């Protein structure tokens, strides 16, 4: 009997709130299946399971906040006998909610029919955008009074700001990184003209939904270079460094209004350019919508942080533990460069590497950055 527990979704996570079960007792699960949704400081995360079997019973209820390692469900492996009393647990599971008898949409205004509320309470709730259905009434027969709406608003304002939670999570991961990892930094200016010209020619013939971004060329170059330099790609744990066989490329995605999340593109070293672009598009959209999968938050083996088109020139980043390297790209810009012995204006970008000195030295880091450069000189490679 396997115990499926609340996974750690990063060095910075302590607990998560279960918001959805996608399986119930008796359901078969396979490695990689999404079985639950957990609300964390990084948004709602789809939790994958990494064992095969049948769900014996659920150990956690919707709405429960559970620390990392707390039991979520018991999984019976193939060939194991069902526990006596399984049927009892099966009964406990709530049936699918019956479809509402009236298919019409619920009224959107808070002044819903059937809710007893004083006119003043209705007016204030409408003005402040509070749904009356969420307010507990203390008047006659449970009617909602003005004071109830005021109280509900006060409670809503005390609710923690999710951005504040994310800031705290970033603070804890970055402080841990700076405390434990002896970083060293390297910077290298890359001539981006070949990639820029190739990309313009490609995109001229493509409709917008098929166009490529420089970010995809950069991600491909970083992933392929990391596959060749094992000392920058992997996890550092209690037993030291474990290089990874695959490159799961974390992408730092900035969220509007503040905050940052770095989900990974799995097996990024194997992706061709269009597949890389599609993967980035999908990952960025889901990071913004707060719907990432647990493996994307835990499997990253190296992170790429790009400052975008309008940013500054150089970034010296902080490694995201337990990884051992972070690649930073500044904003590409035209700069005077020596090209074929002549100073000319070339599109260029500065790439930086923050790497863990417990695992690699400057020489290895330099080889990695030069390998990225080499890939960016050959944008046409398959």
């Amino acid at each position, binding site marked *: 009997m396997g115990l499926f527990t609340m996974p750690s979704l990063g060095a910075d996570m302590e607990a998560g709130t279960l918001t959805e079960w996608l399986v119930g007792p008796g359901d078969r699960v396979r490695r990689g299946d999404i079985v639950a949704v957990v609300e964390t400081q990084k948004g709602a995360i789809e939790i994958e399971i990494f064992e095969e079997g049948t769900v014996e019973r659920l150990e956690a209820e919707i709405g429960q906040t559970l620390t990392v390692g707390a039991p979520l469900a018991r999984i019976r492996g193939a060939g194991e006998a069902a526990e006596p009393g399984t049927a009892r647990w099966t009964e406990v599971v709530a049936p699918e909610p019956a479809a509402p008898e009236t298919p019409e949409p619920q009224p959107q205004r808070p002044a819903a029919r059937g809710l007893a509320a004083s006119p003043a309470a209705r007016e204030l709730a409408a003005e402040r955008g509070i749904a009356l259905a969420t307010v507990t009434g203390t008047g006659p027969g449970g009617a909602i009074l003005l004071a109830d709406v005021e109280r509900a608003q006060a409670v809503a304002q005390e609710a923690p700001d999710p951005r504040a939670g994310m800031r705290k999570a970033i603070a804890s991961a970055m402080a841990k990184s700076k405390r434990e990892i002896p970083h060293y930094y390297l910077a290298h200016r890359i001539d981006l003209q070949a990639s820029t010209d190739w990309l*313009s020619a490609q995109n001229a013939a493509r409709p*917008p*939904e098929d*166009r490529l971004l420089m970010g995809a060329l950069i991600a491909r170059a970083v992933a392929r270079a990391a596959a060749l330099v094992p000392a920058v790609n992997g996890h550092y744990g209690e037993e030291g460094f474990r290089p990874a066989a695959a490159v799961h490329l974390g992408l730092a995605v900035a969220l*509007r209004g503040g905050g940052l999340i770095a989900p990974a593109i799995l097996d990024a070293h194997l992706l061709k350019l269009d597949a890389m672009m599609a993967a980035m598009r999908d990952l960025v959209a889901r990071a913004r919508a707060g719907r990432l999968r647990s493996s994307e938050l835990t499997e990253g083996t190296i992170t790429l942080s790009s400052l975008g088109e309008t940013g500054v020139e150089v970034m010296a980043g902080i490694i995201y533990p337990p990884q051992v390297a972070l690649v930073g790209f500044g904003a590409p810009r035209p700069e005077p460069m020596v090209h074929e012995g002549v100073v000319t204006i070339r599109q260029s970008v500065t790439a930086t590497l923050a790497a863990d000195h417990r695992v690699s030295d400057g020489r290895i880091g330099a080889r990695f950055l030069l390998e990225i450069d080499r890939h960016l000189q050959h944008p046409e490679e398959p």
Partner: protein
Amino acid sequence: MTEDEIRAAYLTALTSVAPDIEAEAIGPDDHLQEDLELDSMDVLNLVAVLQKALGVDIPERDCPQIATLALAVGYLGRRLAG
């Protein structure tokens, strides 16, 4: 298409690719990337939605011309007329 219609189409497209931005909060000279914090992926998505909604071709080199609401209304008006 009138200027108002183009403005409305632009705001609809923008709020569809960045649902957390409110149309009323967008000023005529707010820059997509510098003020509204869109990234290159968002801008690409915006171009795709606009091209579909308005039926005009927006080549990649013209992207700076839709960087603000005011710029876009002028540029898209010219493209639609031409």
